[in-house]
């Protein structure tokens, strides 16, 4: 147990910081995912065939290919792609992207594909009358979406988004392969230097369980909040 001491002779503080890193990456990835979903959900519901095709391509490819492969693509290809864009603007030095950005971006793209499907499902199950009624009442386009459709959509989406959050949280363990020091990477380092992998990986499992448990509690509260009136 003294392996978990805080300070120089234990790994407690390192693991605590790594847990915070996991939370930070998960939240960033989830937000990036929402941004992707905000782009691709309307494309999915659009009446134009080629827009549907683009969106379907995104969700099918990302959900059909292992997360690890997507992470390798961004890890090995990310800085190359950015340097290529920079060279168009006349900047030719080596650019290295930080592991946090590559990690949360690649997990964000994956999480976005799942979120897109969730939002599509939620939007499609809102009664058509709601759209028509808000139009008839002369509410502005922005108000229609923000005040009428969005709250109803969230109620339907939250249970499934909670699954997406769990997937995203667990997927962040994979970016340890890029060297970002989150729970998994920190346990790897600690296991390597103390030769006690069983202890540290078990602790990693406990930390992940704690995170999934606490986030479930929080999401249940949110769910109740958005269910008011039903």
């Amino acid at each position: 147990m003294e392996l978990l001491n805080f300070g120089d002779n234990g790994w407690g503080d390192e693991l605590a910081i790594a847990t915070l890193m996991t939370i930070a990456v998960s939240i960033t990835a989830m937000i990036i995912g929402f941004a992707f979903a905000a782009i691709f959900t309307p494309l999915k519901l659009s009446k134009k065939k080629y827009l549907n095709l683009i969106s379907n391509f995104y969700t099918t490819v990302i959900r059909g290919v292992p997360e690890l492969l997507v992470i390798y693509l961004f890890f090995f290809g990310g800085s190359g792609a950015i340097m290529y864009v920079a060279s168009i603007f006349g900047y030719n030095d080596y650019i290295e992207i930080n592991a946090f950005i590559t990690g949360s971006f690649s997990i964000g793209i994956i999480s976005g594909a799942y979120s897109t499907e969730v939002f599509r499902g939620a939007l499609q199950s809102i009664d058509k009358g709601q759209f028509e009624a808000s139009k008839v009442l002369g509410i502005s386009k922005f108000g229609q979406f923000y005040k009428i459709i969005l709250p109803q959509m969230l109620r339907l989406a939250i249970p499934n988004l909670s699954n997406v959050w769990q997937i995203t949280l667990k997927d962040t363990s994979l970016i340890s392969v890029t060297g970002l020091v989150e729970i998994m990477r920190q346990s790897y380092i600690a296991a390597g230097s103390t030769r006690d992998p069983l202890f540290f990986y078990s602790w990693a499992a406990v930390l992940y369980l704690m995170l999934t448990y606490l986030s479930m509690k929080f999401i249940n509260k949110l769910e109740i909040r958005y269910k008011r009136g039903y």
Partner: protein
Amino acid sequence: MDLELMISSLPKLLSAAIVTLKLLSASLFFGLFIGLLFAILRISKNVLINKFAYVYSYVFRGTPLLVQIFIIYFGLAQIEYLRTSFLWTILKEPYWCAIIAFALNTGAYTSEILRSAFQTIKPGIIEAGKSLGISNKIIFYKIQIPVAIRQSLPAYGNEIILMMKGTSLASTVTLMDLTGVAKYIISTTFKPIEVFIVAGGIYLFMTFIIHNVIKYLEKKYSFQ
């Protein structure tokens, strides 16, 4: 685009895909038994057995697969007792460690799928069996299990695809599966996009096949 690299890496990736398929089928095979066992424990009326099955599925679904593999591959090797027992012949192989981790993981998800299928079987079907004088044991094996399997097919199809993606983690314990070989080619050629297209294409092709097989089975075993 380096077309030459894409063509030259295709045979290597295809033979690695066979490793992926082997890992997948072995883990699904064992996972199905584990899943069925724990689903039966979950619907048991004994609180202790019930809780045990619940904790099993909660732990395996609440932690990343990567942690599970690392505990089994790196962690278990640390226990002196295991190293001297006959289990060591299995546990020293990364191949079997990966399969054990995958089977336990997919078993947890499968048990949840089967449990909900068992619980949604219409009581009328079981009552009909009872009124025909069929014994409880036969009702379970010949009525409840087939109906539950049919009902859980769509969810199980998703689980197979998720598991196929999960087998990519075998590359973290030195196995050269499709993702492992893809990573090796990427890190030696620094052409991530080309390799991603070929390897991703193979994965998508496998997803496509699995998806259609499940759809065919669903149609074949539909009640209508």
